């Protein structure tokens, strides 16, 4: 090709690709609006979103909502207010060292949300990238990565975290790292299979033909198309992360400080579950509510992507 024509061709292609980006942004906005409309029709999904928003707000405004601090003790002249059932002063009662349960519960929201969001985001980034690379390049890279994932699948989550905690201690960072290690495998798998099928599509072959670089293709062309699945998967990851944090804290290997998991741990280990239902029920209930809400949201999103086909006869 004459250099001048080649340059012009490249410019046209480049401009077309950037108009692709504009198209992508507009599509995203349209999709978001469409998603919102579907959500409005599904009462479970709407309630779930409201619940999640509520918890996020609770977490953010914890100091404002609570009059006390999580570690504050209440010792009066008559003795410590230990294991007291709910009252006006302590709407959720007190624990074994006279901390206010309600305060602990409100502040515990922060840990769960942070752990959930951070794990979700990091797994999203790592898992999606690995999945995209594996699915796009196929061949030996794919084989190797998938073998690693297969092996990781045989390793159970909590025992692995126990082992890691045994060696590396249990700071928040370590916990988050351990979670990421455990949670990225499903994301990678899911993204990979989606990428595999997308790579065969004409638009990818066309992009390759005009000489777009691999990185460009992967991140500008394929990635937008896996976003919906990635989003659903991320929501599930967040729910697992929250559940995992609770379990790990329950075992005593969790974060230092007060989280819902540590509350349950204390109540169990001190044998307070014999009587202190006010201490046991709220933290577990909030975990359940958040996790179930996340499930409903992911179901609503899945319905959008793969609507359940028409009815059958009964």
């Amino acid at each position: 090709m004459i250099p001048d024509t080649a340059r012009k061709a490249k410019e046209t292609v480049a401009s077309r690709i950037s108009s692709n980006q504009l198209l992508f942004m507009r599509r995203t906005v349209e999709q978001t609006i469409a998603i919102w409309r579907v959500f409005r029709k599904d009462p479970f999904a709407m309630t779930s979103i409201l619940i999640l928003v509520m918890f996020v707000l609770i977490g953010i405004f914890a100091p404002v909502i609570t009059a006390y601090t999580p570690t504050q003790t209440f010792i009066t002249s008559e003795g410590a207010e230990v294991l007291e059932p709910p009252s006006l002063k302590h709407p959720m009662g007190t624990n074994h060292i006279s901390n206010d349960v309600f305060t602990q519960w409100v502040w515990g929201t922060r840990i769960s949300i942070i752990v959930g969001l951070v794990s979700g985001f990091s797994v999203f980034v790592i898992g999606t990238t690995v999945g995209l690379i594996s699915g796009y390049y196929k061949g030996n890279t794919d084989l190797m990565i998938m073998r690693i994932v297969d092996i990781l699948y045989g390793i159970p989550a909590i025992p692995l975290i126990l082992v890691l905690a045994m060696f590396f201690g249990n700071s928040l960072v370590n916990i988050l790292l351990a979670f990421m290690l455990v949670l990225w495998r499903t994301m990678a798998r899911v993204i990979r299979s989606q990428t595999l099928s997308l790579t065969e599509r004409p638009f990818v072959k066309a992009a390759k033909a005009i000489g777009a670089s691999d990185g460009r293709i992967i991140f500008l062309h394929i990635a937008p198309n896996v976003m919906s699945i990635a989003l659903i998967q991320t929501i599930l990851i967040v729910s697992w992360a929250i559940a995992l944090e609770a379990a790990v804290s329950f075992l005593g290997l969790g974060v230092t400080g007060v989280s819902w998991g540590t509350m349950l741990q204390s109540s169990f280990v001190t044998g307070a579950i014999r009587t202190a239902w006010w201490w046991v029920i709220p933290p577990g209930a909030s975990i359940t509510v958040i996790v179930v809400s996340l499930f409903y949201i992911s179901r609503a999103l899945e319905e959008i992507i793969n609507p359940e086909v028409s009815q059958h006869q009964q």
Partner: protein
Amino acid sequence: MTLLELTDVSISYSVDATELHAVDNVSFDAEEGEIIGIVGESGCGKTTLAKSILQLLPPNGRVDQGEIMWKGEDLVQLSRKDLNKSIRWKEISWIAQSAMNALDPVYTIGAQLRETLKIHSYDEKPIDEQVDYLLKRVGIDPGRKRNYPHELSGGQRQRVVIAMALALDPPMIIADEPTTGLDVGIQKEILDLITEIQTNRGMTMLLITHDINVVAEIADRVLVMYAGQLIEQGTKQEIFDDPSHPYTIGLQNAFPRLGQRSRTLVTIPGAPPNLVDPPSGCRFKTRCPFSTDECSIDPPLETTSNGHVAKCHYTEKKDEFQEMGQIPGTWVDRR
């Protein structure tokens, strides 16, 4: 003897918030031993009509009006339990389209045949004997009854489906697109098989198809459906040699026929009307090259000769239409 009598049957589906009127006021009879071909393009309502006979409509479908009389009993009013006990498969059976998986993939074909016999308490012969007999009857080696459906070819699977339909020796069989999706050579084989069985047993058959050539091969009488309505009915001879409705004329000229002198094929431009809100008057009028203002009035079923009816105002002009219909220029898009 008339076995099946449909009178003024209308069927509609509830889709989202609207009603789709799939079948509108169709009536016809089936005599013992007849093969009736029901032809029409996809969406004309022929399969819906056939399914309604055995109450196989999906939950959002229902027979709005009309009767479907089988040996004097109204099948529409029959309870599911009675239908299962006395009608389904015993009186009327069904040959499904082969292209889809009409057979359960996780059971052997022998097991599925056996099951059909068992649930109807078949006791005329030992069941295994009957299974072998049925397979032989359709040209499949009984040794293959241990095979799973995916281990058979398309043509073989279709034969099994036919064998299953024959299991209880019913007086009537409904065949829904029995040859669609098969290779042309296999199509002929299957058609021959069906014809042979029908001649042998003298059973009544309703043959649903969009392929007019299939009907030309084996039907005795033909029903032509369009947009949910029955627009022409007659013997095979009458329909093919003397088509009286412009749509049938168009159909004729759209399919190549072996043995006819070569001519250019026509296509009928346009598409069938939307059945959620069907047009008043003749439903073919927007695509009909011969339509006039009078066609805004719903045409009656005019009789051209005994038994041969067509739903058109101008049946007396049929010879003229037949001639003009052969010229591709007649079928110009008039929208």
